[in-house]
């Protein structure tokens, strides 16, 4: 069944991030450094009813396509979000973000006593212990992090 109304007009080229857990779009925007300085159009829908039940957020970004590490970051704050890549008004590629097996240079270890927070030539590194619910563990100090801690340390 076709949607009766689309909140915004269709975009020509760009990226749609759909099925973002409600309220998490703000964090996604910050991950993508979308602020007042951007030169492209972004439409944000917060707390909209989802056909799959419950609520969700949606972000539509014109003329921007996301990089691997941006998708990895999104996977951690908005697991289950779907990415649709739009070219000439049509979806040319669609997939669900996937949490990588190892998270490198994305999350900071909250343990202030962890070597990864000192002036060493390394990036932070976490091993994914569980995808659902998300649980990651610092490769260096072995500190485990759950979803809320991940979001505040990304």
């Amino acid at each position, binding site marked *: 069944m076709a949607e009766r109304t689309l909140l915004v007009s269709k975009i020509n080229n760009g990226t749609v991030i759909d099925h973002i857990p409600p309220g998490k779009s703000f964090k996604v925007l910050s991950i993508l450094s979308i602020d007042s300085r951007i030169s492209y159009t972004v439409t944000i829908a917060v707390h909209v009813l989802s056909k799959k039940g419950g609520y969700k957020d949606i972000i539509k970004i014109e003329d921007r396509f996301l990089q691997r590490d941006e998708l990895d970051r999104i996977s951690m704050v908005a697991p289950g979000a779907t990415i649709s890549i739009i070219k000439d008004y049509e979806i040319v590629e669609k997939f669900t973000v996937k949490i990588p097996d190892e998270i490198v240079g994305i999350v900071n270890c909250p343990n202030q006593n*962890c*070597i990864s927070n000192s002036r060493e030539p390394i990036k932070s590194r976490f091993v994914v212990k569980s995808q659902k619910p998300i649980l990651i563990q610092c*490769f*260096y100090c*072995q500190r485990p992090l759950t979803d809320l801690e991940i979001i505040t340390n990304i």
Partner: protein
Amino acid sequence: MLFQKSLVSIEDVSTEDIEEILKISDSMVKLLEAHKNPHSMDSYVMATLFFEPSTRTRLSFESAMHRLGGSVLSVSDVSSSSVAKGETLADTIRMAEAYSDIIVIRHPLEGAARLATQFTAKPIINAGDGSGQHPTQTLLDLFTIWKEFHSLDGLNVSLVGDLKYGRTVHSLIMALSRYDVNINLVSPPSLRIPDHFLARIPKSKKVRITESLDDVIDSSDVLYVTRIQKERFADKNEYLGLIGSYSIDEVIAGKMKKSAIIMHPLPRVDEIKPEVDFTGNARYFRQASYGVPVRMALISLMMGVS
């Protein structure tokens, strides 16, 4: 196989390797008793980098290497030399790699030894990283139990004291949970084992959590006592109240099985009364003395020299 591998966490060591370390440690004990120092390490150099003071651990590593006939390069106070000049740990390790065959590191930050393994191909031994891991302590703890009971299976092991911050107990619990042991965790509520740590113990393990030493004292084969640090308590009286109910004296030791042993990673403060030293259950000094043979065994295996 430990050959040319690093030892950062006890979880890096397979159960077969633990077995081998225990057996070789035993032969090292015998060699030391007979005053026969093997000269197997004649052409090897060990570097000990201690970024934090620890006389006991450093001396036992250095003694182990000397007894194996190897030589030791020791920077007594790295923190005042390289760190003061702003050198990263990564660079210090690269420097040490050029001068030695095996590197022992003690560092105040957690994960330091893991980081070290990324900047050298030479084996690293973690001699303690902040409140993280201290795997050679765990090996000598296991050896003490094994030496006493000739096995690590079928035992009742009770860990007493600071189960929240104590790194030695965390590694020991992880190692023990590979064997057929019942684990009792005895601590005041404020020093209880953290939930995230408990979640790492296999579900099949029998773990009993209690506040009362009386619950376990007569059934334990091993009573592993740890230091309750005064600094953890804002309120001095709370500390004094606690230490009373968890310190081992002659009366408590008297309730133990004759064959049971009392262990402690040392140094002890108030947790074990000096009078207990003379009971048949006290094993903490012998436990400490195993530091050298166990480290001899480990170094030999890592260097592939028998």
